């Protein structure tokens, strides 16, 4: 609990600093495109009922996308990392496709999957998939051979090795990839929602922008920022639980 309150204090301090900076910047620039927090924050509160459903739509898209991307990438990546034969075949494919910016396929996804949830969930999941795949593969490769050997000496099967050694050893790296992935995921979400469809926070922001309703636009921006923070924090909490041994072993 002490850690939690320290964390809250940290967040409060950071929020205060950000607000002060925002306030100063908006005063300096003095443009309606960057309203002062004094205007934007009350607007955010008054728009809450309109924002909430959009936030729900956006949250669902990111979470669903990250879930399928991760669920597919982790076993595949770990398998590649532990099997020299599979790696020899698939690693070149992964390394050729990894640097390609997946977001350029957005139009393709839109044409194929329409304007609803599907293209967004597919595209974001696709991007998360690659990030986690490469990380999981490298993490599985880096598992200490001594750990594998010692568990094998106990009579462990390949499944046992995966369960007791490879998966837990790779977990911290996978979570790091996911946390970095949330940033990318939300950025892509914004892009996808702003281009196609009539719901989600991305659409809300661009829609308000089109109506030159800058305070509403900013309320949407704040909501999107909060979405990122919440996702990041949720991942952090799960990670702390799953990799408890790491924090204690300092």
């Amino acid at each position, binding site marked *: 609990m002490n850690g939690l309150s320290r964390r809250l204090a940290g967040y409060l301090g950071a929020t205060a600093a950000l607000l002060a900076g925002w306030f100063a910047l908006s005063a300096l620039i003095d443009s309606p495109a960057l309203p002062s927090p004094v205007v934007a924050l009350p607007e955010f509160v008054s728009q809450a009922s309109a924002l909430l459903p959009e936030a729900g739509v956006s949250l669902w898209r990111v979470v669903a996308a990250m879930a399928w991307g991760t669920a597919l990438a982790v076993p595949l990546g770990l398998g590649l990392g532990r099997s020299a034969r599979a790696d020899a075949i698939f690693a070149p494919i992964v390394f050729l496709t990894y640097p390609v910016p997946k977001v350029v396929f957005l139009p393709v996804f839109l044409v194929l999957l329409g304007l609803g949830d599907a293209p967004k969930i597919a595209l974001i999941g696709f991007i998360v998939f690659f990030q986690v795949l490469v990380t999981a593969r490298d993490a599985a490769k880096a598992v200490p051979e001594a*750990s594998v050997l010692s*568990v094998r000496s*106990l*009579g462990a099967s390949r499944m046992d090795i995966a369960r*007791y050694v490879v998966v837990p050893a790779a977990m911290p790296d996978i979570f790091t990839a996911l946390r970095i992935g949330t940033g990318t995921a939300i950025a892509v979400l914004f892009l996808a929602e702003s281009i196609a469809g009539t719901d989600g926070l991305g659409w809300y922001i661009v829609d308000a922008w089109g109506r030159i309703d800058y305070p509403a636009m900013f309320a949407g921006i704040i909501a999107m920022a909060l979405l990122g923070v919440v996702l990041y924090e949720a991942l952090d909490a799960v990670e702390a639980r799953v990799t408890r041994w790491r924090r*204690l*072993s300092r």
Partner: protein
Amino acid sequence: MNALELTGVTLTYEGSGRGVRALDALVMSVEQGEPVSVIGPSGCGKSTMLLVSAGLLTPDEGEVLAAGRRLTGVRRETALILQDYGLLPWKTVWDNAALGLRVRGASRKEAGEVALGALERVGLLEFARAYPGELSGGMRQRLALARAVALDADLLLMDEPLSALDALTREDLQDVLLDLWRRRGHAQVLVTHSIEEAVYLGRRVLVMSPRPGRIAAVVENAEMGEAGFRSSALFHERCVWLRSLLAGEGALHPGASAGDSDVTYAESTASTGGVV
């Protein structure tokens, strides 16, 4: 019937490019309930010999028998402790101790109970819920021992299990090992770089030649385990004798073999002379 028997065991590592012959027609045996120490120059194949004995490596030629049966893989009644203990940092002390049993199909409850008993034996009961990262080096070593004890093995293979410990902790754990062996009566192969440890814990000490390793000499050490052995003149004599044998294998002369082994032997000989 011997607990362990290697006949003509040859193993070549297919390294990067050229192969390295680590073992060449190695012959050695360990009787039931016998504690054996193995000592030899660095890189002579001691770890390889243990991995072969544990069934983790298959020899290119020759045969490995454990309790009279030809080894085809990992054997249930054999426990192996590696130099870095092979503990899993993400599992609690308790789960680590129970791991061997879990992997061998025991239920969570049953494995947990046996593991708790093993932890008690090595004096780690109160740390059951801690993680290995929270333990000292000596405690981690005790945990590795507990995991092996929990398996109720009749053959315990150890690769320099105490080499990372300070001299005092090391002596303490040597006594733990001796005590465990006395009570359980398992056969044991202890690979070590310390002359003193080899003599203290081996009823026979096998001296290996430089790579490819074979048994170059054997020191019979029947008085091992007797009360006060460590401070007896006989103990000292055996250490001196073993040291001369190792020198004969080129393990002690600077330049004659790998540089770091000289340091190791010099240190362990110094502690033989009574420097803790």
